[in-house]
């Protein structure tokens, strides 16, 4: 589990700090894990949802002519995609971690 956190540090150095802190805290306190994992996932999902909404909005604006900038829309869509991908990877790793820990406790 330690390794996976370090991997995030190395490849995504500018990942938001409070999110990192949450992961660090999970390493330390094993009791509150159920709730905290949920919280992290919820936070991620909310962020991803917002970005997807933003991307959809900019697509709508492109269609109706409010925004005319193709690169703006492409980037909004791409940012939403990346956020989604990141969320999926983190979700997978968190679930793996969670399962490992559950196995340990038993």
């Amino acid at each position, binding site marked *: 589990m330690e390794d996976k956190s370090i991997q995030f540090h190395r490849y995504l150095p*500018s990942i938001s700090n409070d999110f990192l802190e949450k992961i660090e805290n999970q390493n330390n306190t094993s009791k509150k894990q159920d709730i905290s994992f949920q919280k992290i996932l919820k936070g991620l999902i909310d962020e991803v949802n917002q970005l997807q909404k933003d991307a959809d909005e900019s697509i709508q604006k492109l269609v109706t002519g409010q925004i005319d900038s193709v690169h703006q829309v492409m*980037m909004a869509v791409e*940012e939403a995609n*990346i*956020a989604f991908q990141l969320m999926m990877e983190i979700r997978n790793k968190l679930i793996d971690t969670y399962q490992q820990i559950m196995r340990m406790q038993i």
Partner: protein
Amino acid sequence: MGWLNNDVTYLLLKKMLDVCTLRHRIIANNIANVDTPGYKRTTVIFEEKLRSLLKRGLNAEKIREIQPQIYIDETSTWREDFNNVDIEKEMVRLSTNTLRYSIYAQLIEKKLQTIKQAIKGK
């Protein structure tokens, strides 16, 4: 994602795409008006502002703030119709600007690819 939209390079590249778009509009307008009597060409100032900003230190906030400016070029001309558009120069600017746009778009694409790779891990 807070982290991507606070990255100085990413924001800079995003802004440069906007600047190139504005610049193209202006060059296109200059070209369309090459035969209009009395027309004075316009130009976009941005890179100089960026340079002076670089000396004082670049951060996300400053990049968000800095805006390109449109200037009317009042230099005189030999033309009888007082139009100061030099079509050759405009064509050069057109090419340069188009290439720049491609470069910035390419760089953004590479950056996004790197991030996607990083997410996939190992």
